[in-house]
């Protein structure tokens, strides 16, 4: 595995998305003098931390062969809860918000496990329903943080680095280690790659699915809490369309929708790619609209390149 093939494949492979990340990073460094500064780079990390946290959980769920469309709504619910319950104490509020995420994840996981229904359908339902719960709880009102410690936390730094960025990077590291080093992580791959074989091997499929849905629910809630502290507020529509951005980032990072393949390092690349693109184009004063088009184009290009790279064109029947 020393050949060029080994460059993109095998255990020590370099993921294509990182080449892309480095390329656009260099590109924007030349295009804008403000881009390459410590404050801007930490800024990018803070901006990406929300989608990033969602994407960490989503990577697990997708490697497991499922998908979760309800992350945006869960984020919204957690944000509203953490701001809304603040009068009862900050700790209670944060714990309640995180618990809500875990419960929603557990419900999704339980239904997917027990009914065997496609996770796409189950979490689509949850996405609509949880948004209803937010509106029910908030009565369509936006909440503003009354606890200043909470709002300050979102803007605090350790040395020059924002706390939010540190939390995101720490979570990424932990999730990477869990996925690559633990029994749960490896079994997540096994279940996504070949569920039948996993059952025969005595792997408890349902348990791993449940855990992964709970993980994604937890991270969605965590992202919601942090986003609320960053904004000092929560709106009932917070997190809308985030599921689409999250899936985009995870797919860009090389995780397969069919399950059994993917990595946290790839996902980090995918998240950063989106973050750098948004930030860099903003620096170049390109209207935000264009980012949508460019992102769509990139996503499709990635699919085409992946197809061309991995297609054993002559060995396969042309259908």
């Amino acid at each position: 595995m020393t050949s060029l093939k080994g460059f993109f494949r095998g255990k020590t492979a370099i993921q294509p998305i990182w080449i892309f990340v480095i390329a656009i990073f260099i590109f924007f460094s030349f295009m804008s003098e403000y881009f390459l500064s410590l404050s801007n780079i930490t800024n990018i990390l803070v901006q990406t931390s929300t989608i990033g946290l969602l994407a960490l959980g989503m990577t697990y769920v997708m490697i497991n062969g499922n998908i979760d469309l309800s992350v945006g709504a869960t984020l919204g619910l957690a944000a509203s809860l953490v701001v809304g319950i603040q009068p009862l104490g900050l700790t209670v509020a944060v714990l309640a918000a995180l618990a809500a995420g875990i419960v929603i994840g557990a419900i999704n996981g339980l239904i997917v496990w027990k009914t065997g229904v496609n996770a796409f359908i189950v979490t689509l339902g949850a996405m609509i329903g949880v948004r209803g719960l937010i509106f029910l709880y908030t009565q369509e009102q936006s909440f503003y943080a009354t606890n200043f410690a909470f709002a300050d936390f979102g803007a605090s730094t350790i040395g020059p680095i924002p706390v939010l960025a540190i939390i995101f990077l720490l979570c990424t590291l932990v999730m990477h280690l869990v996925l690559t080093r633990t029994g749960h992580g490896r079994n997540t791959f096994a279940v996504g790659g070949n569920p039948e074989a996993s059952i025969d091997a005595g792997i408890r499929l349902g348990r791993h699915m449940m855990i992964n849905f709970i993980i994604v629910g937890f991270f969605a809630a965590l992202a919601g809490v942090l986003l609320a502290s960053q904004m000092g507020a929560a709106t009932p529509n917070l997190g809308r369309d985030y599921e689409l951005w999250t899936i985009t980032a995870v797919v860009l990072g090389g995780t397969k929708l069919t399950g059994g393949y993917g990595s946290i390092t790839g996902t980090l690349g995918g998240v950063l790619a989106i973050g750098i693109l948004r930030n860099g184009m903003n620096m170049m004063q390109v209207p935000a609209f264009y980012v949508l088009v460019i992102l769509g184009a990139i996503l499709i290009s990635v699919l085409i390149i992946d197809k061309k790279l991995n297609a054993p064109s002559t060995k396969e029947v042309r259908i």
Partner: protein
Amino acid sequence: MNPSQGNAVQRPPIDAEPVLRLAGITKRFPGVVALNSVDFDVRPGEVHALLGENGAGKSTLMKVLAGKHKANEGKIILGGEEMEFENPKHAKRAGVVLIHQEQSLVPEMTVAENIFLGSLPKKWGNRVDWRKLREDTNKILETLKCSFQHDDLVGSLSIAKKQMVEIARALVFTPRVVVFDEPTASLTDHEKPVLYDVIHSLCDQGVGIVYISHRMDEIFHLSHRISVLRDGEYTGTVNTCATSEDEVTRMMIGRSLELDHASKPSEFGDNMLEIRNLSVKRVFEDVSFNVRKGEIVGMYGLVGAGRSEVAETIFGLRTPVAGDVVLDGEVVNFRHSHDAVAAGIALVPEDRKDQGLILGMNCRDNMTLAGLGTVSSMGFMKGSAERTVYDKYQQAMKIKTPGWRQKVGNLSGGNQQKIVIGKWLHTHPKLLILDEPTRGIDVGSKAEIHALVKDLAKSGYAVLVISSEMPEVLGLSNRIIAMYDGRVTAEFDGDSVSEDELVQAITGMGKPSPTAAVTG
């Protein structure tokens, strides 16, 4: 591998207390009794073959044994102890391992992770102990003399190597009984001896082997005893050295099967198909042959020799880099299967379930799928015309279904294959290509399909039969094209060719191996 060779090495039965005994196993599914009070035992160091037509209950019996199904009645006695297996892992830990027909590996994981799937060695904190995993894996790979590494991705291995991984997996918990379910179905003749060696060495260690297969030559080559199931009932056990293929066949189907080798078609017309120097990059090269009207041409070769690929190229599914396909005097070189069908080519593909049928569709709709134009007018389907077509072929081929509304996924393999053939007969093709037409189907349907193919040729069809079963090729073909490693190595007269000549031609013996065509 010469099938007659198998009869030479028959093993006497081993006298020992059985390591495993199944007594009075009954398994009912709603509406059917899949197994009715079946007895079966395996002695240590013995290969016990289990035979039966499709649907006879072999797989169900083995699933009961391996803990996938629970029997309604009966006992499983392992080493003198009555067991009740809750799940496959439980059975595996007790020493009963099933090696699957369908491969149950995770392609994106390494060999080591696959072998220890579900039982990865752990350190504290649920962390995987990679060092122990590597060492344990290497130990197992050494005993099997495997040529691949512990950290190879399983998805990149050949089918034979994947099978070795499956076997390696069986060795994780010192097994007492190993069940092989059709293990050679996807192996080439080169790879089979490796499997046989593994089976022999397991026997030497005192492991009991249950061997399920359709191939008589293998069974007679390997086994000590043979047990037969018929319609969920146990029909008996015989010692391999004291029985014959005829007797076993009789036990399986309740009558003796006589393959009629003398009724081949004999009147041929002009060339229907002519292949001129056809090549597909990295698959096959410089293939030329012809098929006349009314003639059956057999294409014989090992799996991977490029036979199916030639058929797919004729059918417009692959793009040749050189050469021509000539149909009925016209150079055609189809770009799409649609054009091939329109021009009168029919392909009964190798993989019935993936390529031949829409399993979720009913029998009638599958039957008319390739000829929708003939059962519709102005684009609208004519229900009555469809029924007529379905009834015609259902009766002509004696397809057993509860009715045309039945989903084909619920039919047996033989009946499914007849639906695929019926689908193509309905298009009234000029050229019928059958790729492994009787693979994995029961003996009765097999004979019916053989008779049908001969009748079709006699009525003027040009027929190309691809097969890796020598009796089938010899019994059907007027001429035989032998392929090896992407090339046509010889052409024989179907009536006068000897088995040895055929084997030589398809294994590349006596000829320098072609270097240009690289497969794999």
